[in-house]
């Protein structure tokens, strides 16, 4: 593993480990109205938007899936 970065190694791996801890185990990517979003599950039915993963600038104008919005799984 070769890192080419400005960030000191001890800042990247604060507890001395070598990157084995899964970073985003609670984060998953899914589609919301055809927009790929990275979400974090906050309750069994609710997901919080972390990042819009799309490359289409128009998708970033959609208020419904701005980072921080809570999406609800509708099981009806």
């Amino acid at each position, binding site marked *: 593993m070769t*890192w*080419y*970065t400005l960030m000191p190694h001890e800042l990247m791996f*604060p507890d001395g480990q070598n*990157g084995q801890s899964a*970073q*985003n185990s609670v984060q998953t990517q899914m589609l919301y109205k055809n927009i790929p979003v990275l979400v974090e599950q906050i309750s069994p039915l609710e997901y919080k938007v972390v990042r819009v993963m799309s*490359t289409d600038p*128009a998708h970033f104008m959609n208020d419904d899936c701005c980072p921080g919005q*809570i999406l609800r799984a509708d099981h009806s």
Partner: protein
Amino acid sequence: MNQDQEPKQPNGPEGNSEQSSLVSKLQSLGQTNVPQMEGSSIHCLTIVGQIEGHVQLPPNNKTTKYEHLIPQLVAIEQNPKIEGLLIILNTVGGDVEAGLAISEMIASLSKPSVSLVLGGGHSIGVPIAVSANYSFIAETATMTIHPVRLTGLVIGVPQTFEYLDKMQERVINFVTSHSGITEEKFKELMFSKGNLTRDIGTNVIGKDAVSDGLINEVGGVGQAIAKLNEMMEQNRLKKTNDGLEVIQ
């Protein structure tokens, strides 16, 4: 811009209908549908934080993952509605292999690409910045060029050194073949002493990056989009001319 363009996202739901039917049930609480916006013919790739490759970084790191970027680049290449790519960089560096993979993907796109370095495009961010057809750097933005070195477990054998040297050579070759900087100048920046506090190397700021030949122009998002539009127009003209020749 395509007026009748459907806001279909590039890596569409074809092929994973099971997943999309599941997630299409997701609805925002108490909000109604917004009118669908027309898609853009320019797509934008934002590369922020660390570039994450084969190893997952601990949660304190902000990362851009290559498994997210590479399918997006494939989608941009294959979607005929997308005519140009804007790459916005603010990165501290990251995995050499992942960074070079992304750079090669951008460099081999058949569509015009423009990169813009904002804030910083350090270490492995340098090859990514120069991989686009045309590059911009904000006046206050910086790029740090320093040697590639091994962190963590280092075995003091000549092979380790040779391996690193080859890794470094890959970065140098990519940068010199995709920008106006000479190998001598790039190496001089990479190994110069007394510029960085904890390392050898150079911190190149806005105008200096342009005068060294690393970046094409100093500018912001306005200039970058204008340049991209100009290149897209040329591309369209070229396509029309090619079509005419075929008819004749």
